[in-house]
């Protein structure tokens, strides 16, 4: 192991509205920090190289891959995971729509998919189905075939526009 990476670094960040201070190995990925050190297991690890999108979460307002970011890079950042979003009803309409439309099956991609969908919806307006599909293309789902997800996102977009 590289000595720089094995060094311990102090970080302070805000996770789901709570201040967190920790001393972490410099090599610690954000997703591992959240899952292993904070017990926030709602974000999932699917590929560890930034392709599948299962670890998508929100850092300083942007959606990022938790597997491509080191926790030291998140020093001082504001992070929201699915747990915090759920506790604060941050995307309740979207979650309800996913349940109603059965836009999830195994649920492994779902937290990341919700963040990606919410990111699109936050841009305002009612995106077309093509636009929704395009925006969700960084998040793989092997169960649904995507149509139910697109339906759910479209429904929420219309609901929010009213």
């Amino acid at each position, binding site marked *: *192991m590289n000595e720089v990476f094995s060094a311990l670094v102090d970080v302070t960040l805000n996770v789901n509205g709570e201040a967190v201070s920790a001393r972490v190995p410099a*090599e610690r990925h954000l997703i591992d920090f959240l*899952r292993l050190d904070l017990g*926030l*297991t*709602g*974000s*999932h*690890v*699917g*590929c*560890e*190289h930034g*392709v*599948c999108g*299962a670890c998508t979460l929100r850092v300083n307002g942007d959606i990022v891959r938790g597997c491509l970011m080191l926790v030291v890079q998140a020093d001082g950042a504001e992070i929201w*995971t*699915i*747990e915090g979003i*759920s506790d604060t009803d941050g995307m309740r309409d979207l*979650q309800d729509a*996913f*349940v*109603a439309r*059965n836009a*999830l*099956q*195994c*649920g*492994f*991609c*779902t*937290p990341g998919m*919700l963040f990606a969908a919410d990111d699109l919806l936050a841009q305002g307006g009612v995106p077309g*189905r*093509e636009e*929704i*599909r*395009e925006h*969700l*293309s960084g*998040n*793989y*789902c*092997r*169960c*649904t*075939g*995507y*149509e*139910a*997800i*697109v339906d759910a996102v479209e429904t929420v977009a219309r609901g929010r526009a009213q």
Partner: protein
Amino acid sequence: MTIDFGNPDRPNSYIGRSVPRPNAPRLVEGRGRYVDDIVLPRMLHVAFVRSPHAHARIDGIDAGAALAAAGVRRVFTGEDLREVCTPWVAVLAHLKGLKSAPQHAIAVDRACWVGEAVAAVVADSRAAAEDGAALVDVDYTPLPAVTDMRSALAPDTPVIHPELGDNLAFRRLHEAGDVEGAMASAHKVIKARFKTGRHTGVCLEPRSILADYNRAERTLTVHHSTQAPHMMQTVFAQHLDLPEGKVRVICGDVGGSFGIKVHVYPDEVATAAISRVMGRPIKFIADRVESFSTDIHARDHEIDGTIAVDETGRILAIDIDDWTAIGPYSVYPRTSAIEGNQVVNLCGGPYDFQNYRAQTTVVFQNKTPTCQYRAVGHPIAAAVTEGLVDFAAEALGMDPVEIRRRNLIADDAYPFTAPTNMRFEGLSHHASLDRLLEIMDYEGLRRDQAEARERGVVRGIGIASFIELTNPSPFMYGIGGARISAQDGCTVRMDPDGSIVALSGVTEQGQGTESMLAQVVAEGVGVPIGQVKVITGDTQVTPYGGGTWASRGAGIGGEAALQAGLALRRSILEVAGAMLQAAPDTLDIRDAVVVDMASGGERLPLAEIGRIVYFRGDTLPRDLPRELVQTRHYITSEYPFAFTNGVQASYVEVDPDTGFIRLLKHWCVEDCGRVINPQLVDEQIRGGIVQGIGGALYEECIYDPDGQLVNASMAEYLVPMASEMPDMQIAHVETPTRESTLGAKGAGEAGTAGAPAAVMNAINDALRPLGARVTEMPFTPERILRALGTVAGD
């Protein structure tokens, strides 16, 4: 007791309704509990050293540097583990001639594919285990690798397992009628060679296991992402020399399975064996590279197909020569001969014809082992059959719909025995085709295609009929000697407050099993669905069952749940009758209230019965049975399998300049018998279609001639993304099976079974005016351009 399924206004009418899944709300909140989310005290992690060679002798393993690394606790080789874990040979008695070699949890002496585990490093964290694995020095002598399917049996090809004599794992020839005679007298005989690409399931949650051996109790508890907890219980007990009763397999949330997680994986058995040795919890979560090189692959087939038709388009004969290469071992315990066997059993399936010959040749090679993946053999058989039917229609100048009309088994012909010897209780090919043409507006679509063509836009319509094997009996595995349960059970109980708990041997993988069970039990007992709690996936708690495979959950697990629910209703009414001084058969349960059957007048809430039975049993007649727990099991017996049918259509646009294919729309009409939850069934079909499309257009495990898997990452192995997929319209014809009260057959694999064939036929319909044809999946832009002659060579 009968249920008036035709009356949607009947009391407690949950069967047939789209109700939300009870487990979905926690999954959207990130409150799922997958194996990797579980942390146990003193838990260690294992990472495997894997062979970089397709075939190599292991001359020595030096673990010294690894053992000296920080956090590494122990290293195991194949020799170490063979002391505590017996090898297995994956054969089944009813697949005559099938042979395989003993396979160890960790390779002993020899590695036979790139990715096979050759050592295990146990450490405090996964990261430390991986760092340690990189320090294990394995001395290999590379051996010649067998990587070409067609020359696997050639005399000069090395034999992978010399003790087996050759590289032939299995061969089966099935003949019915007079194929040669029919071919000789036919109006047209059309031949084609098809290939289906070797691909894999790419479950978003990788294979995951956490094994915890407790020395004090001599018990092994395994948290496992699996489709078949009871089968795994048996396997761990058998190979680790433990009584079955001392092994408990717990299967919580599973992040996708699709058949990938129904097999015995050497590294998972090794994990359990290491826990047995160390007496500590050991976790193994495959990473994505490991997933690609060690999850089972499937669909690696090459098929020469011939179809003979008369002047009217009637099919006279079909001849199939199927080849498949399965890797170095048949996969335990379901074996790797089933897929080829299914191709033999399923080709020509939708059609009424007499003369059929099919042979499958299953050979060993030095690649990742293949085994059963969603819709086992079906997409291959459907593609070959439907491809040949379309080529016959082309040769006759006949519309693809017309040739199907003339050959599909008549809807009033059942029961029907096909030339494959498969028996069909009741199918609806013609009614399904009628419905398909209606929802897709076939004539309108043909006009759109013609208009597009005038604009220079190349579009095609493809249709594919198919059959699907569901609700398997012991004829699938049990008769071959495998301890894989075809029956399933359900225990339903009423607790004091009137709430209902149902425990089932079928498992939840995201498809909605628990919702289906809750619906069936709610209707069976007569309570609101919110009052039913379903528990699955724990061998210590649920009745013994088979789990999830071959589309059996609803048809078999659902029927057991219905019968258990109805039995509990009778038990409750017996107690109610005594309390109310009324004959039980004059009473009913509706919305958790005992009512007068005739008037519907409310007599007694279930909670009051619960209070009396559990706390004031002294007030009931002494001899009155008060068993508010009922268990029922169900097994199919009249037919080995409940076949379903369906038909799909695809509308595609091909860009002849780039070879890119755009999926414009997809339709599926299928008949899974009684539909318990229309929304869940539709989403099973949609998800299945997209997995089928993946195989048709994108997914392929690509090997170089030395047996190296060259695209083992998600960036290089393409799976369908949201932007590429079409909207899909789904409709149903319902022909319930008469074998069960519920009448449900399976629906989980229909989408995957027919989609590749429909897409292939659509592409070829588009390419036909350009004089091109493709039959080798996946239909990549390169293969389209080669077919068009834009790119030279093959």
